[in-house]
C-alpha cells in the first residue's frame, strides 16, 4: 500500500503506535493549548450570554491585560500589586466600555455591536502600543510565583516532559472555571446574570440594572482574559501577535456553541489537541504551518453539518 491513502490514513497512526511517549507528549501539549483556547473562548461566552454581544475584542483584552501587568512591573511596581492594579484596570475598562459604548448602542442590531467591538480592538491595540510599546515582552513568571522547570515521565522507556508552567496553567484554568461555576450558581449576582441571559426583563426583578450586569460580565471576561494572558505569556511571550492566536477562540466557539460554558471547554480541548495532532502527524504532508488554519477549517466543516454547535439547540425558523 502506498501513495496518498497510505500517507493520510495509515502512516500517521502507525507513528502514534510506534512512539507512544511522543504521542502522549503531543496530546499533553495540545491539551494545554486547548485549555488556553478554552479560557479565551470562556471570555466570549460570558459576554455573549449576558448581552448577546459578540466581543471581538476578547483576544486583544488578553494581550492588553498581560501587557499592563508586565508594563506595571517594569515601572517598579511589585508583581502582586501590579496584578491587583491590573485587575483594577480591567474593571475600569469594563466600566468605560459599558458607559461609552454599550449604553449608547442598546437596541442596535448585533452586527453594529460586533463592529463596535472591532473598533474597541483598535483602541486597545493602539493604546497598548502607545503606552507600553510594541515590542515583545516576557511574562513576570517567577515574580508571580508560577513554577517553572519541568518533570519528566518515562513510560515504558519513552520520555514525556511536563513543563510545570503547563501544569500550573491547567490547574489555574480549572480553578477559574470552577470558581466561575460557583459564582454563577451560588451568588445572587451570578444567578442574576444567568437570568439575564434568558430574559433581559428578568434582571429588573432581581433588582440589578442591566448596566451593572454588563459591567460585571465585562469585568469577569477581563479577569478571564488576564489569567489567559498570564498563562499564555508565561508559555511564550507577551506580544501583539497573540491577538491573532486568540482569534482561534472563534472556531472553539463554533464547536462549543456561543452560549455554552462546557461547550467552550470541550471545544477548546478538541481544537487544541486536534490541531497539535494534525500539525505533527499530517502537517508534513502539506508542508507544515497547518496550525494556522486547521482550527478554522475544522470549524467550517463542522458548521456545515451542525450549525448550532455541539451543545446548541436546533433553531426553528419562524415567519
Amino acid at each position, binding site marked *: 500500500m502506498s501513495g496518498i491513502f497510505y500517507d493520510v490514513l495509515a502512516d500517521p497512526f502507525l507513528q502514534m503506535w510506534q512512539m507512544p511517549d511522543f504521542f502522549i507528549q503531543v496530546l499533553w501539549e495540545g491539551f494545554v493549548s486547548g485549555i488556553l483556547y478554552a479560557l479565551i473562548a470562556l471570555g466570549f461566552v460570558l459576554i455573549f450570554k449576558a448581552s448577546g454581544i459578540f466581543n471581538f475584542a476578547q483576544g486583544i483584552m488578553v494581550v492588553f491585560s498581560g501587557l499592563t501587568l508586565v508594563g506595571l512591573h517594569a515601572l517598579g511596581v511589585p508583581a502582586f500589586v501590579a496584578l491587583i492594579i491590573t485587575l483594577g484596570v480591567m474593571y475600569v475598562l469594563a466600566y468605560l466600555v459599558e458607559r461609552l459604548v454599550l449604553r449608547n448602542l442598546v437596541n442596535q442590531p448585533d452586527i453594529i455591536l460586533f463592529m463596535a467591538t472591532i473598533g474597541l480592538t483598535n483602541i486597545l491595540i493602539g493604546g497598548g502600543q502607545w503606552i507600553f510599546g510594541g515590542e515583545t515582552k516576557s511574562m513576570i513568571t517567577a515574580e508571580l510565583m508560577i513554577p517553572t522547570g519541568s518533570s519528566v515521565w518515562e513510560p515504558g522507556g519513552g520520555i514525556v516532559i511536563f513543563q510545570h508552567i503547563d501544569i500550573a496553567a491547567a490547574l489555574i484554568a480549572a480553578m477559574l472555571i470552577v470558581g466561575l461555576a460557583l459564582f454563577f450558581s451560588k451568588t445572587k449576582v451570578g444567578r442574576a446574570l444567568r437570568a439575564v441571559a434568558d430574559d433581559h426583563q428578568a434582571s429588573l426583578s432581581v433588582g440589578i440594572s442591566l448596566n451593572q450586569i454588563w459591567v460585571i460580565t465585562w469585568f469577569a471576561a477581563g479577569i478571564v482574559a488576564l489569567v489567559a494572558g498570564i498563562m499564555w505569556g508565561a508559555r511564550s511571550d507577551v506580544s501583539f501577535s497573540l491577538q491573532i492566536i486568540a*482569534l482561534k477562540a472563534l472556531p472553539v466557539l463554533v464547536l462549543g456553541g456561543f452560549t455554552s460554558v462546557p461547550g467552550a471547554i470541550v471545544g477548546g480541548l478538541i481544537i487544541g489537541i486536534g490541531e497539535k495532532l494534525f500539525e505533527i502527524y499530517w502537517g508534513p504532508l502539506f508542508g507544515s504551518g497547518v496550525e494556522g488554519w486547521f482550527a478554522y477549517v475544522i470549524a467550517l466543516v463542522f458548521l456545515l453539518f451542525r450549525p448550532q454547535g455541539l451543545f446548541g439547540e436546533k433553531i426553528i425558523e419562524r415567519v
Partner: protein
Amino acid sequence: MFYREAGQFKTSYKQYMQAFPIREDRIGIAIWLAIALFYVPFFGLPGLEYTFAMNAIMIPVVIFTITAIGLNILVGFTGQISLGTGAFMGVGAYACYKLTTYFPDVNIIIIILASGFVSAAVGAMFGLPSLRIKGFYLVVATLAAQFFLEWCFIRVEWLYNYNPSGAIEVPQREVFGLIVTGAAAEPATRYLMVLGFLILLTIIAGNLVRGRVGRGWMMIRDMDIAAELIGVRPLRTKLSAFAVSSYYCGVSGALMVFVWLGAAEVESFDVNHSFLYLFMVIFGGLGSITGSYMGAAFIWTFPILMKEMGKRLFDIDPIIMENVSLVAIGALIVFILIKEPHGLARLWQLVKQKLRIWPFAH
C-alpha cells in the same frame, strides 16, 4: 443651497433610474471627475509633495476604494460579514502574477481583469457555507479562508515562481507605450490606470446594485426568509455576491501589487488588512458606493495625515502618531456607530437633504 430642482421633472422611468437623477448632482460628479482626471495627475494634492501625494495617498486610495466597493457589496448590500478580504486580494495578486508569467505578451489590463475571475471563483467557493450559516458563524468561515489562503501564499511555492525570497516581484509592462508597472512607471500613469479601473468598476457596481441582482442581494440582507418566499434563491444570490465582491477584491489586489507596491509578500494580505478594509466599509457607510469612496479615503489618509501633522507641527515621533491614529480610528468607529450607524455616506445624505431644502431645516 446649490440645488435648483424646480423644473427638473421626469417624463420617463429611464430618467428616474439614472445614477444621478438630479442635475446638480451630475454637475458635482463632473467637477470631481475633472479634478481627479485633470488636476491630480499633474499637480498631486495641495500642500503635499507630489510623489508622496501620488504614491502614498492617491494611488492606494483609488485601489482601496475598489476593495471597499467590493467588500461593501458583500457586507453592506448582502449582509454577509467577511474577514477574508485581504486573502481574496492576495488571490487576485498571485493570479495576476502567474498569468503574467504564462502570458507575458498579453496586455496587463486584460490580465488584471482576468485575475479577478480567479479571485471570484475562490471567493464563491468560500461563500458556499453562507447558505447554511449566518452572522458570526460566517465570520469564522471567512477567517478560515483568510488563514488557509495566507498559508497557501507561503507554502505553495509555485505561486511565487519558487522565488527564494517568497515574494512576488512585478515585471515591467506597458499599455499604449506607457510603462504602467514596475519601478520605472510614472506616478501619473499608474494613478490614471488605477483610476480607470475604479471608474469602470464603480459604474458596474452602480448598475448591479440598482438592478435585479442588487435587489436580490439587499432582499437577502434585509430579510432572508421573506426574500426566499418571494422567490429569491438564497444560494445563487449569496454566491453571486461573494463572487462579485471577490472579483473586486481580486482586481484591487492585483492593482495593489502590480501598480502600487511593485512587490509583495504574504504580509500585504494578512488579516489586519482585512480589518482595515472592513473599517473602510463601516466608516464610509454600509450599502453605499459613495460611502466606499469616503471610507477608503478617510481610513487610509487619516493616519498618514496624522503622522504628517504630528511631524510637521509638533515634531512627534511617527510611531506614536501611528498608535494615536489607531486609537483615534477605533474611537471614531465606535463614535460613528453610535451617532450614525450608516457612516459617512448617510451623513453626506443628510447634508445633501439640507442643501436641497435650504433655507429650510426640514
